[in-house]
Protein backbone atom coordinates (compact mmCIF):
# COMPACT_ATOMS: atom_id res chain seq x y z
CA UNK A 1 0.00 0.00 0.00
CA UNK A 2 2.83 2.38 0.97
CA UNK A 3 4.62 1.70 -2.31
CA UNK A 4 1.47 2.50 -4.28
CA UNK A 5 1.02 5.77 -2.36
CA UNK A 6 4.67 6.71 -2.87
CA UNK A 7 4.47 5.97 -6.59
CA UNK A 8 1.24 7.97 -6.83
CA UNK A 9 2.82 10.93 -5.01
CA UNK A 10 5.94 10.86 -7.20
CA UNK A 11 3.73 10.70 -10.27
CA UNK A 12 1.72 13.76 -9.16
CA UNK A 13 4.90 15.73 -8.43
CA UNK A 14 6.38 14.70 -11.80
CA UNK A 15 3.20 15.65 -13.68
CA UNK A 16 2.99 19.00 -11.82
CA UNK A 17 6.63 19.72 -12.66
CA UNK A 18 6.08 18.96 -16.33
CA UNK A 19 2.90 21.09 -16.46
CA UNK A 20 4.51 24.04 -14.63
CA UNK A 21 5.52 26.70 -17.11
CA UNK A 22 8.19 29.17 -16.21
CA UNK A 23 11.68 30.40 -16.93
CA UNK A 24 14.68 28.12 -17.32
CA UNK A 25 17.30 30.46 -15.88
CA UNK A 26 20.09 30.32 -13.29
CA UNK A 27 17.83 31.47 -10.45
CA UNK A 28 15.40 29.11 -8.77
CA UNK A 29 12.62 29.24 -6.20
CA UNK A 30 10.61 32.35 -5.33
CA UNK A 31 11.95 35.64 -6.64
CA UNK A 32 10.62 39.12 -5.94
CA UNK A 33 11.09 41.85 -8.51
CA UNK A 34 10.81 45.52 -7.63
CA UNK A 35 9.81 47.86 -10.46
CA UNK A 36 10.72 51.10 -8.74
CA UNK A 37 13.30 52.93 -10.86
CA UNK A 38 14.86 56.08 -9.43
CA UNK A 39 15.89 57.13 -12.94
CA UNK A 40 12.25 57.04 -14.17
CA UNK A 41 12.92 54.64 -17.04
CA UNK A 42 9.79 52.56 -16.54
CA UNK A 43 6.82 53.76 -18.50
CA UNK A 44 3.06 53.36 -18.62
CA UNK A 45 1.00 54.98 -21.33
CA UNK A 46 -2.57 55.30 -22.51
CA UNK A 47 -3.78 55.83 -26.02
CA UNK A 48 -7.15 57.20 -27.03
CA UNK A 49 -8.29 57.52 -30.60
CA UNK A 50 -11.35 59.31 -31.93
CA UNK A 51 -12.13 60.78 -35.36
CA UNK A 52 -11.29 64.20 -33.87
CA UNK A 53 -7.95 63.50 -32.22
CA UNK A 54 -5.47 60.86 -31.07
CA UNK A 55 -4.20 61.36 -27.53
CA UNK A 56 -1.20 59.72 -25.88
CA UNK A 57 -0.62 60.05 -22.15
CA UNK A 58 2.59 58.95 -20.47
CA UNK A 59 3.95 58.53 -16.98
CA UNK A 60 7.37 57.36 -15.87
CA UNK A 61 6.31 57.11 -12.24
CA UNK A 62 5.59 53.37 -12.16
CA UNK A 63 5.96 51.34 -8.98
CA UNK A 64 5.23 47.78 -8.00
CA UNK A 65 6.48 44.39 -6.91
CA UNK A 66 5.80 40.88 -8.16
CA UNK A 67 6.78 37.55 -6.66
CA UNK A 68 6.77 34.21 -8.42
CA UNK A 69 8.45 30.84 -8.52
CA UNK A 70 10.86 31.00 -11.44
CA UNK A 71 9.83 27.53 -12.63
CA UNK A 72 6.09 28.25 -12.45
CA UNK A 73 4.83 31.62 -13.66
CA UNK A 74 1.31 30.74 -12.53
CA UNK A 75 2.47 31.45 -8.97
CA UNK A 76 2.87 35.14 -9.92
CA UNK A 77 1.40 37.59 -7.42
CA UNK A 78 1.89 41.30 -6.97
CA UNK A 79 0.78 44.72 -8.12
CA UNK A 80 1.82 47.67 -10.25
CA UNK A 81 0.72 51.24 -9.75
CA UNK A 82 1.19 54.63 -11.38
CA UNK A 83 0.82 58.13 -10.05
CA UNK A 84 -2.06 60.06 -11.68
CA UNK A 85 -0.43 63.45 -11.05
CA UNK A 86 2.54 62.58 -13.26
CA UNK A 87 0.57 61.73 -16.43
CA UNK A 88 1.49 64.03 -19.33
CA UNK A 89 -0.50 64.25 -22.55
CA UNK A 90 1.43 67.01 -24.30
CA UNK A 91 -1.08 69.75 -23.47
CA UNK A 92 -0.72 71.33 -20.03
CA UNK A 93 -4.37 72.41 -19.84
CA UNK A 94 -5.56 68.89 -20.67
CA UNK A 95 -3.20 67.46 -18.02
CA UNK A 96 -4.87 69.74 -15.48
CA UNK A 97 -8.31 68.51 -16.62
CA UNK A 98 -7.11 64.92 -16.37
CA UNK A 99 -6.08 65.46 -12.74
CA UNK A 100 -9.24 67.40 -11.85
CA UNK A 101 -12.09 66.21 -9.61
CA UNK A 102 -14.36 65.48 -12.57
CA UNK A 103 -11.77 63.32 -14.26
CA UNK A 104 -9.29 61.00 -12.53
CA UNK A 105 -9.37 63.14 -9.37
CA UNK A 106 -5.68 62.89 -8.50
CA UNK A 107 -6.29 64.53 -5.11
CA UNK A 108 -8.64 61.82 -3.83
CA UNK A 109 -7.31 58.89 -5.89
CA UNK A 110 -3.59 59.58 -6.42
CA UNK A 111 -2.81 56.18 -7.90
CA UNK A 112 -4.08 53.82 -10.57
CA UNK A 113 -3.35 50.24 -9.53
CA UNK A 114 -3.39 46.77 -11.04
CA UNK A 115 -3.36 43.81 -8.62
CA UNK A 116 -2.57 40.45 -10.22
CA UNK A 117 -4.93 37.62 -9.32
CA UNK A 118 -4.35 34.90 -11.90
CA UNK A 119 -2.00 33.90 -14.71
CA UNK A 120 -3.35 31.90 -17.64
CA UNK A 121 -2.70 31.00 -21.27
CA UNK A 122 1.04 30.74 -20.72
CA UNK A 123 3.06 30.40 -23.90
CA UNK A 124 6.76 29.76 -23.38
CA UNK A 125 8.65 31.41 -26.24
CA UNK A 126 12.17 30.60 -25.06
CA UNK A 127 13.99 29.67 -21.85
CA UNK A 128 13.81 33.27 -20.61
CA UNK A 129 10.78 34.64 -22.41
CA UNK A 130 7.08 33.87 -22.19
CA UNK A 131 3.68 35.30 -22.98
CA UNK A 132 0.65 35.04 -20.72
CA UNK A 133 -2.65 36.57 -19.78
CA UNK A 134 -2.84 38.27 -16.40
CA UNK A 135 -6.21 38.60 -14.75
CA UNK A 136 -6.39 41.19 -12.02
CA UNK A 137 -8.18 44.05 -10.35
CA UNK A 138 -7.66 47.40 -12.06
CA UNK A 139 -8.49 50.34 -9.81
CA UNK A 140 -8.90 53.92 -11.00
CA UNK A 141 -10.99 56.85 -9.74
CA UNK A 142 -12.10 54.76 -6.75
CA UNK A 143 -13.61 52.00 -8.89
CA UNK A 144 -12.18 48.49 -9.18
CA UNK A 145 -12.91 46.19 -12.14
CA UNK A 146 -11.44 42.90 -13.22
CA UNK A 147 -9.45 43.09 -16.45
CA UNK A 148 -7.26 40.75 -18.48
CA UNK A 149 -3.87 41.96 -19.72
CA UNK A 150 -1.70 40.43 -22.44
CA UNK A 151 1.81 40.25 -21.08
CA UNK A 152 5.25 39.38 -22.40
CA UNK A 153 7.89 38.73 -19.76
CA UNK A 154 11.62 38.38 -20.28
CA UNK A 155 13.99 37.16 -17.56
CA UNK A 156 17.65 38.13 -17.74
CA UNK A 157 20.22 36.64 -15.38
CA UNK A 158 22.49 39.20 -13.76
CA UNK A 159 25.41 40.05 -16.02
CA UNK A 160 27.71 42.92 -16.92
CA UNK A 161 25.04 44.04 -19.41
CA UNK A 162 22.15 44.01 -16.91
CA UNK A 163 24.24 46.00 -14.38
CA UNK A 164 23.88 48.99 -16.72
CA UNK A 165 20.23 49.12 -15.70
CA UNK A 166 20.07 47.72 -12.18
CA UNK A 167 21.75 45.16 -9.91
CA UNK A 168 20.54 41.55 -9.82
CA UNK A 169 18.43 39.60 -12.28
CA UNK A 170 16.10 41.69 -14.40
CA UNK A 171 12.51 41.07 -15.45
CA UNK A 172 11.25 42.98 -18.48
CA UNK A 173 7.49 43.24 -18.66
CA UNK A 174 5.48 44.51 -21.57
CA UNK A 175 1.73 44.53 -20.99
CA UNK A 176 -1.27 45.77 -22.93
CA UNK A 177 -4.96 45.94 -22.07
CA UNK A 178 -8.07 48.02 -22.64
CA UNK A 179 -10.39 49.74 -20.23
CA UNK A 180 -13.71 51.53 -20.67
CA UNK A 181 -13.60 54.97 -19.01
CA UNK A 182 -17.30 55.04 -18.17
CA UNK A 183 -16.82 51.83 -16.12
CA UNK A 184 -14.67 53.91 -13.78
CA UNK A 185 -17.19 56.76 -13.38
CA UNK A 186 -14.96 59.14 -15.30
CA UNK A 187 -16.90 62.07 -16.71
CA UNK A 188 -15.69 62.28 -20.26
CA UNK A 189 -17.41 65.62 -20.89
CA UNK A 190 -14.78 67.85 -19.28
CA UNK A 191 -12.24 67.22 -21.99
CA UNK A 192 -15.10 66.99 -24.46
CA UNK A 193 -15.75 64.01 -26.69
CA UNK A 194 -12.15 64.28 -27.84
CA UNK A 195 -11.24 61.37 -25.54
CA UNK A 196 -12.50 57.92 -26.48
CA UNK A 197 -14.41 55.83 -23.95
CA UNK A 198 -12.26 52.83 -24.84
CA UNK A 199 -8.67 53.43 -23.75
CA UNK A 200 -5.68 51.26 -24.59
CA UNK A 201 -3.12 51.02 -21.80
CA UNK A 202 0.46 49.86 -22.29
CA UNK A 203 3.07 49.13 -19.66
CA UNK A 204 6.77 48.87 -20.42
CA UNK A 205 8.70 48.16 -17.22
CA UNK A 206 11.80 46.48 -15.85
CA UNK A 207 12.16 45.10 -12.35
CA UNK A 208 15.15 43.89 -10.38
CA UNK A 209 15.33 41.16 -7.74
CA UNK A 210 18.16 42.96 -5.95
CA UNK A 211 16.38 46.17 -4.96
Amino acid at each position, binding site marked *: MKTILKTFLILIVAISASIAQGFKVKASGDQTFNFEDKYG*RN*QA*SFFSTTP*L*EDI*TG*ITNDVKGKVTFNVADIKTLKGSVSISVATI*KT*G*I*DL*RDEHLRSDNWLDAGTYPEVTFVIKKVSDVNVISDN*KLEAKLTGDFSAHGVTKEIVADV*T*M*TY*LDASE*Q*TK*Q*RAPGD*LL*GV*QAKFNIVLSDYDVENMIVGQ*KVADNIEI*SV*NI*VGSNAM
Partner: protein
Amino acid sequence: MNNRQKIVLLIAAVLLLGVFTWWLASGGEVLSKDGIWVEKEMTELDKALGLKPELEFHEKFVLGLLPHTAVFSGAVIVISAILFFIFKTKKNKETK
Protein backbone atom coordinates in the same frame (compact mmCIF):
# COMPACT_ATOMS: atom_id res chain seq x y z
CA MET B 1 -13.32 100.05 -53.00
CA ASN B 2 -10.37 102.40 -52.62
CA ASN B 3 -6.67 101.51 -52.59
CA ARG B 4 -6.46 101.40 -48.78
CA GLN B 5 -9.35 98.96 -48.60
CA LYS B 6 -7.71 96.82 -51.26
CA ILE B 7 -4.45 96.75 -49.24
CA VAL B 8 -6.39 95.77 -46.09
CA LEU B 9 -8.07 92.90 -47.95
CA LEU B 10 -4.79 91.79 -49.49
CA ILE B 11 -2.94 91.78 -46.12
CA ALA B 12 -5.84 89.91 -44.48
CA ALA B 13 -5.87 87.31 -47.26
CA VAL B 14 -2.08 86.83 -47.02
CA LEU B 15 -2.24 86.47 -43.20
CA LEU B 16 -5.12 83.98 -43.38
CA LEU B 17 -3.45 81.98 -46.11
CA GLY B 18 -0.19 82.05 -44.14
CA VAL B 19 -1.68 80.82 -40.87
CA PHE B 20 -3.69 78.06 -42.59
CA THR B 21 -0.60 76.94 -44.52
CA TRP B 22 1.37 76.85 -41.25
CA TRP B 23 -1.46 74.90 -39.58
CA LEU B 24 -1.58 72.34 -42.41
CA ALA B 25 2.23 72.06 -42.45
CA SER B 26 2.14 71.41 -38.67
CA GLY B 27 0.01 68.34 -39.28
CA GLY B 28 -3.49 69.84 -39.32
CA GLU B 29 -4.04 69.05 -35.62
CA VAL B 30 -7.32 70.06 -34.02
CA LEU B 31 -5.68 71.29 -30.79
CA SER B 32 -2.41 73.17 -30.39
CA LYS B 33 0.20 71.15 -28.52
CA ASP B 34 3.03 72.12 -26.18
CA GLY B 35 5.17 69.19 -27.27
CA ILE B 36 5.41 65.92 -29.11
CA TRP B 37 6.20 62.32 -28.19
CA VAL B 38 9.36 60.95 -29.73
CA GLU B 39 10.46 57.30 -29.62
CA LYS B 40 13.78 56.94 -27.81
CA GLU B 41 16.45 54.81 -29.38
CA MET B 42 16.51 51.35 -27.79
CA THR B 43 19.65 49.94 -26.23
CA GLU B 44 20.72 46.32 -26.75
CA LEU B 45 19.64 45.68 -23.15
CA ASP B 46 16.17 47.13 -23.81
CA LYS B 47 15.84 44.81 -26.81
CA ALA B 48 17.04 41.83 -24.76
CA LEU B 49 14.42 42.69 -22.13
CA GLY B 50 11.70 42.59 -24.80
CA LEU B 51 10.73 46.22 -24.27
CA LYS B 52 9.17 48.48 -26.85
CA PRO B 53 10.66 51.92 -27.57
CA GLU B 54 10.11 54.36 -24.74
CA LEU B 55 8.33 57.60 -25.61
CA GLU B 56 10.02 60.83 -24.62
CA PHE B 57 8.30 64.21 -24.41
CA HIS B 58 9.97 66.93 -26.44
CA GLU B 59 8.81 70.48 -25.89
CA LYS B 60 7.79 71.84 -29.27
CA PHE B 61 4.90 74.08 -30.18
CA VAL B 62 2.54 72.45 -32.67
CA LEU B 63 0.01 74.85 -34.14
CA GLY B 64 -3.53 73.51 -33.94
CA LEU B 65 -6.84 74.75 -35.27
CA LEU B 66 -7.91 75.49 -31.69
CA PRO B 67 -7.26 77.88 -30.17
CA HIS B 68 -4.39 79.60 -32.01
CA THR B 69 -5.38 79.34 -35.70
CA ALA B 70 -9.02 80.09 -34.99
CA VAL B 71 -8.28 83.03 -32.66
CA PHE B 72 -5.70 84.52 -35.04
CA SER B 73 -8.01 84.12 -38.06
CA GLY B 74 -10.92 85.63 -36.15
CA ALA B 75 -8.77 88.59 -35.06
CA VAL B 76 -7.56 89.17 -38.64
CA ILE B 77 -11.13 89.11 -39.97
CA VAL B 78 -12.45 91.48 -37.26
CA ILE B 79 -9.54 93.98 -37.58
CA SER B 80 -9.77 93.87 -41.40
CA ALA B 81 -13.51 94.52 -41.27
CA ILE B 82 -13.00 97.50 -38.92
CA LEU B 83 -10.20 98.97 -41.08
CA PHE B 84 -12.24 98.36 -44.22
CA PHE B 85 -15.13 100.30 -42.68
CA ILE B 86 -12.86 103.12 -41.39
CA PHE B 87 -11.23 103.61 -44.78
CA LYS B 88 -14.59 103.56 -46.52
CA THR B 89 -15.90 106.29 -44.17
CA LYS B 90 -12.80 108.43 -44.68
CA LYS B 91 -13.15 108.23 -48.44
CA ASN B 92 -16.82 109.19 -48.25
CA LYS B 93 -15.89 112.23 -46.12
CA GLU B 94 -13.15 113.19 -48.60
CA THR B 95 -15.69 112.94 -51.48
CA LYS B 96 -18.10 115.32 -49.74
